[in-house]
């Protein structure tokens, strides 16, 4: 069966160039001759539950709530079917038990990651730089969110924050890694600035990957890392 990447609801979850992660994943697979398809699922379209890797991006409050409604139980089914998820910002928050909305409301999340998100007293905006908890190069991104995310049980973060905020609540960590989920507050997009993160996630889905000449991404990564040093 062909490897299937699913880009979920780009109209709702795509405020910060998030489709870049999908395009870069596809490009990196193409460069290695790995056959795959990219399914973009728009509003009103059926959400496949047997694909291999799902992408969730960032979005505004109302859009995040609509995305929650539309996603229903599709992603928990996909997870049961063995899928992987890469989620950024609002997409990360959606995976948890609850997330905040305007007017002090709390919205029930998808409940597939043991996290909850609360509204933060101050918006976190700026470059974020972290030391990954997995064996890849330092992580760089740009964050812009008004949420702070708490682990409801002992979990592995994606990175330990060196500068920036990430999950907040004084934890100095960003994102989450489980067996099937990688999530982060880093956009930029994350795969453009962190080619090793892209490959690490793809290799969890397709197995070991051949090395790839992708000089511009490595240069971009190094430039961004040096910019915060």
């Amino acid at each position, binding site marked *: 069966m062909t490897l299937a990447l699913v880009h979920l609801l780009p109209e709702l979850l795509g405020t910060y160039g998030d489709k*870049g992660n999908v395009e870069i994943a596809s490009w990196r697979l193409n460069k290695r001759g790995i056959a795959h398809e990219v399914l973009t699922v728009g509003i009103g379209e059926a959400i496949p539950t047997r694909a291999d890797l799902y992408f969730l991006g960032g979005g505004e409050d*109302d859009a995040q709530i*609509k995305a929650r409604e539309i996603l229903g139980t599709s992603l928990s089914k996909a997870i049961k079917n063995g899928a992987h998820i890469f989620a950024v910002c609002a997409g990360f928050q959606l995976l948890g038990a609850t997330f905040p909305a305007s007017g002090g409301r709390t919205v029930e999340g998808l409940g597939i990651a043991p996290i909850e998100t609360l509204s933060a007293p101050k918006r976190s905006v700026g470059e974020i730089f972290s030391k990954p908890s997995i064996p890849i190069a330092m992580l760089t991104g*740009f964050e812009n969110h008004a949420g702070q995310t708490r682990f409801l049980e002992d979990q592995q973060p994606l990175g330990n924050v060196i500068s920036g905020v990430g999950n907040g609540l004084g934890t100095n960590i960003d994102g989450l890694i489980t067996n099937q989920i990688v999530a982060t507050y880093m956009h930029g997009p994350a795969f*453009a600035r962190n080619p090793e993160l892209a490959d690490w996630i793809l290799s969890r889905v397709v197995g070991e990957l051949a090395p790839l000449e992708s000089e511009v991404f490595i240069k*971009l990564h190094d430039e961004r890392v040096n910019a915060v040093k």
Partner: protein
Amino acid sequence: MVGGRILLKLAPNAVLELSKNRQVVLVSGTNGKSTTTALITQALNSKSSVVSNSTGANLFAGLASALSQDLSAPVAVLEVDEMVLPWAIAQTKPQLIVLLNLGRDQLDRLSEVRVVAQKWQGVLKTLPASCAVLADADDPFVAWASLASVNVIWFTSGVHGHMDASTCPECGEILQWQNQGATYSCTCGFKKPNPEWILRGNTLLGPQNQEIEITSAIPGKAGLSNAARAVVVSQYFGVDAEDALRVISKIASVDGRFGTLIVKQTRFRLMLSKNPASWRETLATSAQGPKDVLLVLNANVQDGKDTSWLWDVDFAPLKNRTVLVSGDRRLDISARLTVAGIEHGIVSDEKSAAEIFGNVEADLIASYTAFHRLAKGVKKS
């Protein structure tokens, strides 16, 4: 803009005082502020003297400085930053507000589109009936915010769809788009208002059966619709469309936009692009232009420090052209073009680009701070 800053320090009410006994027009929106302001200023100038900030200084000090230029001018036409609009309305008590569009732009500074629309709505609902709003009906955020005011003149130039308007600004439900994105409506009752002024092709149709042929020396669809808006404003102030168009149709370059910058042997046509909507417009215009094109990307405060939006831009119009990139963030744009399959080279600056391009016409599309640096070298026509 030191003058304006000092003025506001010495007299915090300077803008309020300097606006008294004047007719004030404010122009705001994500894209097209400077051009529309310049077109309106020149059109109204045929009737009475006008002060304006057409160099793009559209924050507090810029407004103060513009208003203090000529105390005898009875009209002021001011472009205003989206976030400064509520303050500018309170201070200047305008007679007319021109609202162009709202789209994602400098998200790190301006915040998300809905936040800006809410700020606008909050102040527009306080406007007296004596203040008219010339509002773009095609843009759901402008329309939603403007519906809060009592005196609206609706305008359409037939823009289809909106990349940030998947959900309704009123209730958050999914916004329904009809007729290939020409109209929109929501179950809550919010829908595209009926426009009174319609730009169809080059013809501007008005509420009293006016049919005005719009001509603009500024290339592109946006240039034409901004010229049409300037004609509507002229009519509002009793300036004949013919008189207004005589002036407007001759303006080919505003503050360096579409101006010519000569570097070594290359004659660059300078274009400003600063967010996905303006890149789309500029790339479409540039696709009709010369084969060679240089893209310059910075990410300073005024450009927006976050470059993620590059991935929202469709760079396909650059296919089969000779593309070079430079600027502080040339690697970001290079990565983007690489994935989009657009062949390109990376150069250190416009001089290196000119060495490669040689004795040709070329387009130079630059982000805000790069544009303003380069615009200083544009020959005044």
